[in-house]
């Protein structure tokens, strides 16, 4: 293992002549076709990651449009904008696209695919062809689901949770529902393969010196997410196959058709179990919530330290908190089923309440990271702070929902709608687009415009609160979710109008993102390798990275190899309760915790070296 490696070609001024850009460009050209064929035939994790992200963001815009349709319908109690059937399709497809096709794939198929191999110094994912298969399955699944709009009877309209027996052919006979089921089988396999790939890559392809406890938190979270995917998604796929069998092969797994007499007594022998679907679905569904949340926790945990110019506060606590969340998340599914009257309330209530503890730890870690830092408010940081506020509100109301007596009167009302939108919007939108603004310079070698980014953020932030806070009140006043019209005498209309205005502000904010993409395409501003003065390995290579990611690696002695390299004079890592760990770049002894493995400390790789400069800050 080389201890001191030649410094990389720098963005703001090349240090080593032998490492010029021609060499990199040459390496790039050596691999396969170009143009469209490159995108179709590639097994490069970066190109696949970009494909994932582009597809997922496009689907996000589509699902956002569907949401606007929902909101317009609800501005009047009578709800005359679209028919009930269209409304039912809209909220079903809005939820399905956002949950299955945007939030997950954008994170673990897109950002993680792109970033994780770079962060651990790997040349690619462990199984590049499987990775390509994942993307094509995902694209096929997404297309299949959207096809529902073009078949007779329209798209699926049984809600994104597809509760049986509503989802059996007796009540929803159309082909749109079948397409929906098959789409989820396809994207389910796509997710499973990505999960396998992530776990294998992180376990086996780390660069020398990159021990587990030197991995960036984003990579840690993607490892845990990968494991959760492997736990949760096969259950969904199996449940869907059984649902399909109920629909078309005459099985009676969830179906209850014909097993009741009109006056009431069920015939136990002829009946399927409607509650079985809910158990299976939520055994997938709740880990799924964390599959959607953990990657975004990881993203903001990358952003806070960089824009505070400090290390992650409580790094190890953060890792263990992530693991606890994952473990607990497999034992809380029935809190979605409190009102079924068929679950053991105290157990699931306690487990659900407990999951607030590791989540709280993360909050204190994020705040501790910012504490006494030098906070730089670029767009990624603003988005990450937006995430904090959004997720705080969603988290507090989540604790309330964990108490069954409270859940009894807000379950399936707009209170729940507001809660999970604040959680998922907070993570997938604030967190996700924070990640997009953060890594965009790495992916394309050019900056996104910060002024447009700030417009995007502030409109989004105000729109977010205006959209969802009225929904809490609506829920507490008794407005059920998934209704296309409501009584006009209950005082719900004004809150609904406020919410709709907020939704349009959110939509407007995303026009600024499109404008930003256009700006960076039309008037590129070169980013350099490390525009944020970031900490982790991916900022050490060029932007965009060469085909195999690295021609050189720095010595990895801490969880911040690029920072160590660029800041040989950085103050020591400090232990707030008294102990101090030597900064990895220094030879003044070996401190406790984490600096022992791999590269021996003491080879000062940079004492005389110039810092690389970025164009920003």
């Amino acid at each position, binding site marked *: 293992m080389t201890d001191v490696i030649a410094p990389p070609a720098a963005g703001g001024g090349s240090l080593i002549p032998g490492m010029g850009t021609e060499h990199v460009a040459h390496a790039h050209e050596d691999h396969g076709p170009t143009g469209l064929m490159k995108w179709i035939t590639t097994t490069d994790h970066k190109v696949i990651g970009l494909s994932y992200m582009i597809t997922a963001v496009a689907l996000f815009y589509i699902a956002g449009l569907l949401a606007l349709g929902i909101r317009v319908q609800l501005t009047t*109690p*009578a709800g*005359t904008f679209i*028919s009930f*059937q269209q409304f*039912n399709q809209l909220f079903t497809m809005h939820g399905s696209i956002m949950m299955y096709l945007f939030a997950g794939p954008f994170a673990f198929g897109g950002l993680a695919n792109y970033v994780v191999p770079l962060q651990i110094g790997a040349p690619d994912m462990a199984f590049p062809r499987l990775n390509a298969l994942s993307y094509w399955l995902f694209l096929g699944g997404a297309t299949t689901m959207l096809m529902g709009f073009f078949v007779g009877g*329209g798209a699926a309209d049984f809600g994104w949770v597809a*509760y049986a*027996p*509503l989802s059996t052919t007796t*009540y929803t006979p159309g082909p749109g529902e079948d397409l929906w089921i098959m789409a989820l089988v396809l994207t389910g396999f796509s997710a499973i393969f990505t999960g396998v790939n992530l776990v294998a890559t992180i376990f086996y392809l780390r660069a020398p010196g990159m021990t587990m406890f030197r991995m960036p938190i984003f990579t840690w979270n993607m490892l845990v997410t990968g494991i959760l995917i492997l736990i949760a998604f096969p259950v969904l796929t199996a449940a869907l196959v059984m649902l399909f069998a109920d629909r078309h092969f005459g099985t009676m797994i969830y179906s*209850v058709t014909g*097993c009741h007499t*009109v006056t*009431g007594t069920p015939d136990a022998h002829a009946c399927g179990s*409607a509650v079985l679907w809910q158990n299976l679905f939520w055994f997938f569904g709740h880990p799924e919530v964390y599959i959607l949340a953990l990657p975004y926790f990881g993203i903001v945990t990358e952003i806070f330290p960089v824009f505070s110019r*400090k290390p992650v*506060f409580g790094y*190890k606590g953060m890792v263990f908190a992530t693991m606890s969340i994952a473990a607990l998340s497999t034992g809380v599914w029935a809190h979605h089923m409190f*009102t*079924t*009257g068929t679950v053991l309330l105290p157990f699931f*209530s306690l487990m659900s309440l*407990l999951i*607030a*503890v590791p989540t*709280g*730890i993360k909050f204190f870690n994020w*705040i501790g990271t910012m*504490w*006494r*830092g*030098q906070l730089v408010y670029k767009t990624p940081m603003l988005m990450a*702070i937006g995430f904090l506020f959004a997720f*705080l509100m969603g988290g507090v109301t989540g*604790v*309330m929902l*964990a*108490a069954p007596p*409270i859940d009894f*009167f807000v379950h*399936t*009302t707009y209170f729940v709608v507001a809660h999970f939108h604040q959680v998922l919007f907070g993570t997938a939108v604030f967190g996700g687009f924070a990640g997009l603004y953060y890594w965009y310079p790495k992916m394309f070698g050019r900056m996104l415009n910060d002024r447009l980014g700030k417009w995007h953020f502030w409109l989004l932030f105000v729109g977010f609160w205006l959209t969802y806070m009225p929904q809490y009140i609506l829920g*507490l*006043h008794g407005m059920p979710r*998934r209704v*296309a019209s409501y*009584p006009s*005498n209950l*005082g719900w209309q004004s809150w609904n109008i406020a919410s709709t205005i907020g939704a349009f502000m959110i939509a407007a904010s995303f026009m600024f993102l499109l404008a930003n993409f256009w700006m960076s395409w039309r008037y590129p501003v070169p980013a350099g390798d490390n525009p944020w*003065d970031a900490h982790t390995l991916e900022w050490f290579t060029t932007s965009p990275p060469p085909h195999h990611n690295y021609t050189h690696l720095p010595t990895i002695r801490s969880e911040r190899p690029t920072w160590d390299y660029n800041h040989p*004079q*950085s103050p020591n*890592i*400090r*232990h*707030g*309760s008294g102990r*101090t760990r030597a900064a990895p770049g220094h030879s003044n002894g070996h401190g406790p915790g984490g600096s022992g493995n791999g590269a021996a400390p003491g080879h000062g790789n940079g004492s005389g070296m110039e810092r690389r400069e970025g164009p920003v*800050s």
Partner: protein
Amino acid sequence: MSQPVDQSPAGTPLSTNRDAAVAGSPAAPAAAGEPAPAPRPRRSRWLGAAVLAVGGLLLAGCQIPTFSATKPTTTQGQDAIKLWQGFFIAGAIVFVIVFCLIAWAVFRYRRRSDAIPQQTQYHTILEIVYTAVPVVIVLVLFAFTFVTENNVDALPAPRLTVTVTGFQWGWRFHYTTKNVTVIGVELQDPQMVIPVHEAVRINLQSHDVIHGFYVPAFDFSRYAQPGIINKFTITPQSTGTYHGQCTQYCGLYHSLMRFRVKVVSATQFAAWVSTHHSSGPQKSVPTVERRALGKSTPSSTATPNSNASTHTSTAATYQTGSTGL
């Protein structure tokens, strides 16, 4: 903007480093529970205000607002609302504390110089505190939850039993011992009549898909599911007519699957039973064929309007909590 420059406290001995930090800060170290010191005077002022506010609320006793939740009209609902009030106050306190910490960090530590700040990464005592304190909070919340949920779900011996059946898209109320049945006609709201101050047992079921029996004024809901009979008790405490609605999405006309609950005095209830007694179902609409209303049903724009008249009677008596939020 200028480039960040590494200043080099790193080169100095460690103790100097720490001392310098303390000396350089305008604040004394704060109590455990905060990630780092904040100015003490300001903090104790906030604390004082918070204690006053919470204390005031507690002194007000049962005058605690329902924080936007519907004022309960049943004994079970009153239990649930007490728990809600407790959770709301606890949640609000946690929210305010964390909100202030974030806001403080965001405003106080915005970039002021190019100096690299202290690279603090661990603080064991603090980490233990902010793990242990939430565990304690959660266990306390769970204890209250456990007690309340047993009260809400209790099944005392009923004075009256009503079998409630949800179907696409209406409700059927069958008074088991009275030989009275009320069935909602397609897209018209049926009315369940029950006596005040009596424990009414509801046996809830469905014959087709899953529905949700929800009366906001009772602060309670429960699924009506095929193959399962859900039993619960409601003990209304005041007379009136209350809006009810299906909450679990159940197909095309889910939005219109509403009903009313009319709580009357015991004598009025007896009179109502005698007029509706034994003449068979009030409106004998066959329940089996309802799902014929499939996706092919034409645009539904007319339906809410045609239905509007049935809701006017609800208007006068439907109550919402007007306080809070």
